[in-house]
């Protein structure tokens, strides 16, 4: 199968869905001619025009409100917040409006929109351009949260997210944009709420999200050389969360390491760990559930510090070994 990048897969999903459905449009800062800060929507303005690929002023709350209002009366906006750090400015519109309108109105309205936003560090952009806030959004009823790790997944999940009738926070990762993988040319959807076992194994389960999935796979290869057979599970969507796949894996391996980039305290690892503990897998646990996550510090600028802020392949390898002793 043809290989394309994660960024190209997103662009292809956007293009196909915009061609298929007139109600889909893009809105965000510099999404038009500039193509977005990471070039993801590059070229779409030429195909679909500036009405459907709409550049906005720097007004994140306005963008989120515009998307929400448009969704309320029949459009399917795909909004972009240029860095996940700036969802902080759009929180009221996202959390109080988009997420809650349906419930508050007794189920009589719907808000089908996608908020695409790149998270994560590793680009030397420091504390205001490197954050990962997915944990905030799983705490908000009414939102769905998707966090794809491969070109294949990002296309299928984005198409599913746009077609979903609810507000979806779609978390991309800057370092994944240039990663390549096989992606079918035709449209396909991956249902929200279905995890994927990226590598089967029997000795230990590694639950990893986003950029941590390729790192976990690399770690698993290194571990394999030492005779440790790790299973890597990618939840893909954090809300709804496919507890079953994770629990099944843990019941098989008896040990689990959860890996994410966001700060450890209050991160999604805590929720995933709790779900495992509350499941039938509890009795199968041979070791405490372990979390490996970002340090509880803002992302530093210095390249070496930045790298140490976030789990790397070697940290995953070491954490798995700690778990097995």
């Amino acid at each position, binding site marked *: 199968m043809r290989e394309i990048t994660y960024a190209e897969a997103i662009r292809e999903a956007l293009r196909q869905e915009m061609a298929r459905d007139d109600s889909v*449009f893009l809105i965000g800062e510099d999404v038009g001619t500039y193509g977005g800060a990471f070039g993801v929507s590059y070229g779409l303005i030429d195909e679909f025009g500036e*009405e*459907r690929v709409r550049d*906005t*002023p720097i*007004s994140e*709350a*306005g963008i*989120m*409100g*515009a*998307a*929400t*209002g*448009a*969704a*309320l*009366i*029949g*459009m399917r*906006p795909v909004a972009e917040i240029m860095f996940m750090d700036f969802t902080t400015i759009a929180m*009221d*519109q996202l959390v*109080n*409006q988009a997420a809650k*309108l*349906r*419930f*508050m*109105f*007794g*189920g*009589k*309205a*719907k*808000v*089908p929109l996608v908020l695409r936003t790149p998270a994560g560090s590793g680009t030397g952009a420091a504390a205001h351009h490197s954050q990962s806030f997915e944990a905030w959004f799983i705490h908000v*009823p*009414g939102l*769905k949260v998707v966090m794809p790790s491969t070109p294949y997944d990002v296309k299928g999940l984005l198409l599913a997210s746009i077609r979903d*009738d*609810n507000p979806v926070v779609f978390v991309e990762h800057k370092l994944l944009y240039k990663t390549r993988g096989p992606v079918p040319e035709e449209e396909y959807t991956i249902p929200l709420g279905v995890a994927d076992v990226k590598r089967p194994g029997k000795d230990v389960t590694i639950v990893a999200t986003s950029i941590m999935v390729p790192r976990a796979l690399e770690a698993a290869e290194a571990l394999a050389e030492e005779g440790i057979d790790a299973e890597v599970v990618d939840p893909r969507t954090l809300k709804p969360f496919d507890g079953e796949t994770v629990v099944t894996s843990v019941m098989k391996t008896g040990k689990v390491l959860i890996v994410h980039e966001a700060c450890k305290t209050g991160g999604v690892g805590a929720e995933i760990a709790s779900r495992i503990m509350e499941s039938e897998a509890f009795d199968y646990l041979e070791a405490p559930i372990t979390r490996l996550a970002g340090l509880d510090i803002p992302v530093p600028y210095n390249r070496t510090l930045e790298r140490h802020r976030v789990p790397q392949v070697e940290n995953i390898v070491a954490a798995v070994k700690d778990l097995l002793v």
Partner: protein
Amino acid sequence: MELQRDLCVDMLSQMYKIRFFEQTVDDLFARGLVHGTMHLSIGQEASAVGSISALRVEDYILSTHRGHGHCIAKGADIKLMMAEFMGKETGYCRGRGGSMHIADIEGRNLGANGVVGGGIPLAVGVGLSLKMQGRDEIVMGFFGDGAANQGSFHEALNMAAIWSLPVVYVCENNQYGMSMSTRRAFKIEKMAQRAASYGMPGVTVDGNDVVEVYEAASEAVERARAGEGPTLLECITYRWKGHSKSDQELYRTKDEIESWKNKEPIRRFLELLITQRVISEDEARKIEEEARRTIGEALEYARASPEPEVDTILEGVYA
């Protein structure tokens, strides 16, 4: 303006309904029959009715925490509204929303809002959608003077302006955001001056004069419908009651309140209609009674309505 009889009867009737609705719910609250809080717009009826009367039924509105008037003026079924107010399953929002979140989606009232300024950007989206879909409808977005100092106001008005969206923004300037007077919260005389920052027309009217509001709103609506973009319409008015149920009203004087009672919008309109012989006193009395009856029936309906079933509690979060 030449006073069209049908329109005037309609406006008078709505103003009465709003007044009676709010007096009724105020009483319910005083008697401990509802919980929570509420924001009454008694004294402000003309701004809701005058502006919304300039709309077509298929136009949209976005309302505020002080939204009963907008809801009634937009043609809500007051039974369902009262049921919502009382948290009943038959209410517009199945009892989930209450006073601060009543929405009548079919009637194209996209809801009250508990967040001050929260609805202003939503109106941008509705306007954008209408424009992209090539539709003929427009949207009217309400907010208060207090909300005009929220960042959302600024971002939204600018977006509506640069994209020439079919939006009419109505600021109901009742002189206070809770206890904060406009005198203290603004260094300018008229909030509508801010329209100039966005390159849109700004108009200030006597918000207690329903005819003046209607005329200014009609112009703004026409402009929006013609594709000429948004307008900021400021209605100067006053709320008679406390901000909400927790208000001791230490920040204003009795005199001030009394002076505004002299500008009472319903009586003013009524006198105009009678002097101009648009309707007779007798007709007026009938309109008033009819309005009173409507509210009475709504109250009965709401009271007789069932509470939501507890086992439906998880419904409606996701589509």
